[in-house]
């Protein structure tokens, strides 16, 4: 018998239909896991598979959808029995294949959920190990509603067996997965992982899938699977039925086949009759396997970014080179600063964010993994993983949710041997630098030759030309006046060869005054030569001017709509007109009214002729005290207090710029955390913002923090004041445990606790030193603590 991967290249192949609904009609009680029947009634499971094979399907899904070690202790036995049932049915038949079926774990992966990526990989790996010698012909990963879990499952298959992998995801009527990915994002990631077929199943009927199939047709170079439900369930005369019958279903399947669906089958509510009719109506239709799409795509967990003529902006701000604040943030592990940079770049219009955390004194891989996970929880832009260390690239690409940009490989043997296998394994679009053992060529032709060498070598690893973006290197014109011209010529030559290009654009002006002027003009020239991507500063107004004007002038901005929006915002036309002019108030009133931008302007103005400490003591603190007292007297509300605290913090940051960093007072500090098991952090955050506005240094550990982590942070920073928050009664024991650990380690630790379920009595019971009824209460306690 032919391999299934060969068969799908030649002809239309058919999956079976629904399992759950069929088994219920065979006597499975509603709510009872159908997988148990693999052992209890194997003959019925085999009969079900036989009925589908008899109906004309080529591939049956084993009755193993919900099985994994989290749900069934005897998962191995259930899996092996399930595959045996299907194998028995396939025996003696032609073109009859058994797909080992795996569904979602039912848990959400980190960072939003609590299942780690590696644990998810290991859950699926255990399934594959149990199934490996049972004779399945392929693995089907189906009904997946999260891109990250899909990646975990695919990696588990790839790393534990040689079977072909088919993947189908669940899209809603808007064409998105439950966690947000669209078809382009899924296709990019799954093709990067070299799956053998991909598509959609469940949730929608074939009618609704018609609106999504066009995306698959446009973007997928891989055979597309369509396994719809029999429409939507509805209750008729007290019985639940699906609203599309086999005749209507198969009519829609004809349209889906004509629009690019290669492998057809059914999901919930479909029966052998659906498959018979679908096959009868579609078998004779002309069949073509999808052609190779020349699309260069990087993706996140929501969308893909196509690298083509319309220029792509890659934000360069998360790279410590020449950025002292970022260096300090990386050394202290202050992810908030990094996340703020990520969010601001996204808001400034970047399409992709470069992430480089390489500093000699930190563990680069660990920091990169932390940064990627955290950045992906606050922005949905695709990321460019930027490191010179292959180990860091490998670990980061593995856990990245999507198909990343990878920065970079170069033309040296060492680099190609180290980086290309990683990209082959995890998928990504690779930046190739035109440098080799002899250095950077001083002419464009030789740089293009190195690019070609890398592309040829990558092909040997199955990495396609479209997944290589060449950086012909921008070198500063201050050392070689020809260097811009060489680079621009190389961009043009690469464009002619159909190779996509990227440049680290800012390098061109290194060592020169008013660098942005040179950089922006060079950027315009490079765009004119066909540059596809620029690693650049999206906060630079002149660079963004160049970007928007180039797009308007080159026909990529239809109706100049993006340009007009950008230009209007630049002129302040979209800024809220009701905001009072800066001259109408003071730092004090700005803080009291909670006007952040105004507070910053006033602070900057005051600092011109007032000592930094006087700005704090004579302006910021009195204003905070005023609103704080109003809050305590119930004359101001909590949101107002928070807005004021933020305005004060922003002013405080302005003041800090004028204080040398070695003079920053870190002696008044507090460690804050929401305790283990608790994911509520509102209360803790309110305390944080108030503490910061009063000038305390806050070590914020976030939520769901284990006791050991709290202790180690307190010890590391020699901070004896620890604030703990819990909202749920179920997590107060974790708070008690944390206090016990702290006190056992060092009696001089002082704990202050707060949260909805706590009161003085409870706080006393768990051994806390202070119960803060509200945020101001906690600030007052910290002030008293440090004034002793």
């Amino acid at each position, binding site marked *: 018998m032919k391999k299934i991967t060969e068969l799908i290249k030649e002809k239309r192949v058919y999956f079976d239909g629904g399992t759950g609904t069929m088994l219920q009609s065979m006597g499975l009680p509603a709510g009872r896991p159908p997988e148990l029947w693999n052992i209890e009634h194997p003959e019925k499971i085999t009969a079900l598979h036989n009925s589908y094979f008899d109906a004309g399907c080529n591939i049956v899904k084993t009755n193993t959808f919900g099985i994994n070690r989290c749900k069934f202790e005897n998962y191995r036995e259930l899996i092996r029995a399930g595959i045996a049932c299907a194998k028995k049915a396939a025996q003696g038949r032609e073109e009859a294949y058994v797909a080992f079926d795996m569904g979602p774990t039912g848990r959400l992966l980190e960072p939003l959920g609590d299942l780690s990526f590696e644990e998810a990989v290991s859950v699926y790996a255990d399934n594959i190990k149990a199934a490996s010698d049972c004779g399945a012909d392929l693995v089907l990963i189906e009904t997946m509603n999260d891109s990250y879990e899909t990646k975990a499952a695919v990696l588990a298959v790839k790393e534990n067996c040689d079977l072909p992998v088919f993947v189908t995801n669940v899209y809603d009527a808007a064409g998105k997965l439950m966690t947000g990915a669209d078809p382009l994002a899924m296709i990019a990631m799954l093709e990067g992982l070299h799956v053998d077929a991909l598509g959609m199943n469940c949730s929608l009927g074939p009618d609704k899938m018609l609106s999504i199939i066009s995306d698959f047709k446009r973007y997928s170079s891989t055979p597309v699977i369509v396994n719809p439900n029999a429409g939507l369930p509805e209750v008729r005369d007290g019985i639940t039925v699906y609203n599309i019958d086999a005749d209507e279903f198969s009519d829609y399947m004809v349209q889906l086949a004509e629009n690019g669906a290669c492998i057809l089958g059914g999901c919930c509510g479909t029966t052998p009759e659906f498959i018979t009719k679908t096959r009868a109506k579609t078998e004779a239709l002309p069949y073509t396997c999808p052609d190779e799409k020349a699309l260069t795509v990087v993706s996140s967990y929501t969308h893909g970014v196509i690298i083509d003529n319309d220029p792509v902006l890659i934000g360069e701000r998360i790279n410590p080179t020449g950025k002292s604040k970022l260096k300090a943030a990386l050394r202290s592990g202050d992810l908030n600063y990094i996340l703020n940079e990520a969010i601001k770049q996204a808001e400034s219009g970047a399409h992709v964010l470069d992430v480089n955390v390489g500093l000699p004194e930190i563990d680069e891989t660990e920091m990169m993994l932390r940064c990627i996970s955290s950045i992906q929880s606050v922005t949905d832009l695709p990321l460019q993983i930027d490191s010179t260390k292959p180990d860091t690239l490998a670990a980061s690409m593995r856990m990245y949710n999507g198909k990343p940009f990878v920065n970079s490989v170069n033309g040296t043997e060492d680099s190609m041997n180290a980086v290309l296998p990683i990209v082959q394994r995890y998928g990504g679009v690779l930046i190739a630098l035109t440098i080799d053992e002899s250095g950077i060529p001083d002419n464009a032709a030789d740089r293009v030759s190195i690019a070609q060498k890398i592309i040829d070598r990558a092909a040997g690893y199955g990495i396609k030309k479209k997944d290589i973006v060449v950086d012909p290197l921008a070198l500063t014109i201050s050392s070689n006046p020809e260097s811009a011209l060489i680079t621009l010529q190389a961009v043009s030559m690469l464009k002619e060869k159909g190779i996509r290009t990227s440049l680290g654009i800012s390098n061109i002006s290194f060592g020169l005054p008013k660098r942005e002027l040179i950089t922006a003009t060079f950027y315009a020239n490079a765009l004119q030569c066909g540059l596809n991507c620029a690693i650049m500063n999206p906060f630079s107004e002149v660079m963004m001017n160049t970007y928007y004007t180039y797009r308007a002038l080159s026909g990529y901005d239809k109706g100049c709509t993006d340009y007009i929006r950008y230009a209007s915002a630049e002129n302040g036309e979209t800024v809220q007109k*009701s905001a009072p002019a800066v001259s109408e108030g003071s730092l004090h009133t700005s803080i009291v009214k909670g006007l952040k931008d105004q507070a910053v302007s006033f602070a900057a103005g005051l600092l011109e002729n007032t000592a930094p400490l006087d700005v704090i003591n004579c302006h910021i603190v009195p204003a905070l005290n005023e609103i704080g007292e109003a809050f305590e007297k119930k004359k101001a509300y*909590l949101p107002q207090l928070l807005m004021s605290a933020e305005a004060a913090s922003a002013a405080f940051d302005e003041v800090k710029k004028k204080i040398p960093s070695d003079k920053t007072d870190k002696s008044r500090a507090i460690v804050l955390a929401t305790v283990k098991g*608790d994911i509520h952090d509102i209360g803790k*955050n309110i305390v944080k913002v108030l503490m910061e506005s009063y000038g305390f240094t806050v070590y914020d550990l976030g939520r769901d923090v284990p006791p050991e982590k709290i202790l180690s942070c307190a010890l590391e920073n020699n901070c004896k004041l620890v604030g703990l928050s819990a909202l749920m009664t179920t997590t107060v024991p974790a708070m008690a445990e944390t206090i016990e650990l702290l006190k056992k380690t060092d009696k001089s630790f002082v704990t202050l606790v707060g949260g909805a379920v706590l009161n003085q009595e409870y706080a006393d019971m768990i051994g806390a030193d202070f119960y803060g009824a509200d945020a101001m209460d906690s600030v007052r306690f910290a002030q008293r603590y440090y004034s002793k």
Partner: protein
Amino acid sequence: MKYSDLKIISASPDEVTVNRNELAQRLRTDREFNAPLLDKCRESFNKAVHYKCVYIQSPVDLSTEGVCDLGFMKIPSRDLYKNLRGCSEAFVMALTAGLSVDRLLARLNITSQAEHFMTDALSSAAIESFCDHACAIMQASLRCAPRYSPGYGDLSITFQKPLLERLNAFETLGITLNSAYLMTPVKSITAIMGIRSV
């Protein structure tokens, strides 16, 4: 799908009026409180929210004192027992505002605590209001008991697990539970609403 008797209610942000008392209570302000920043929060919340509800109508057997038998689970709870007194059926439901709200809150948690606090309050009030909206649709002309959720009174929060499983809430709404029985997306509700008479 393990069950085919599930019913779904969705709503757009326009269809759900956020209850002002609920909001004021969570913001800890009076009903009239407003601020330009709150309007900004409302706008970004409305862009992120995807209201969805799944529910079933389940028989209620109260023949054992202090135990509520809903067919698919037996719940020992005096408080729920009291709440369901006189009911022979109940709506069992799960609702969510969707994962994009979690992502919005994660982002605001980094950029602005004031916006984070207000958006959190707003989304908590909004999911309660959506719950009222969905209950009104389920209820139609039926007379119902006030809805009751795991975590109220002596009704253990652990009952979220069988309840969510019965509603296929992972597949239908994307709701998952962590080890402390808290739901993700965070703005999600499970509830039981007894039907007193037809």
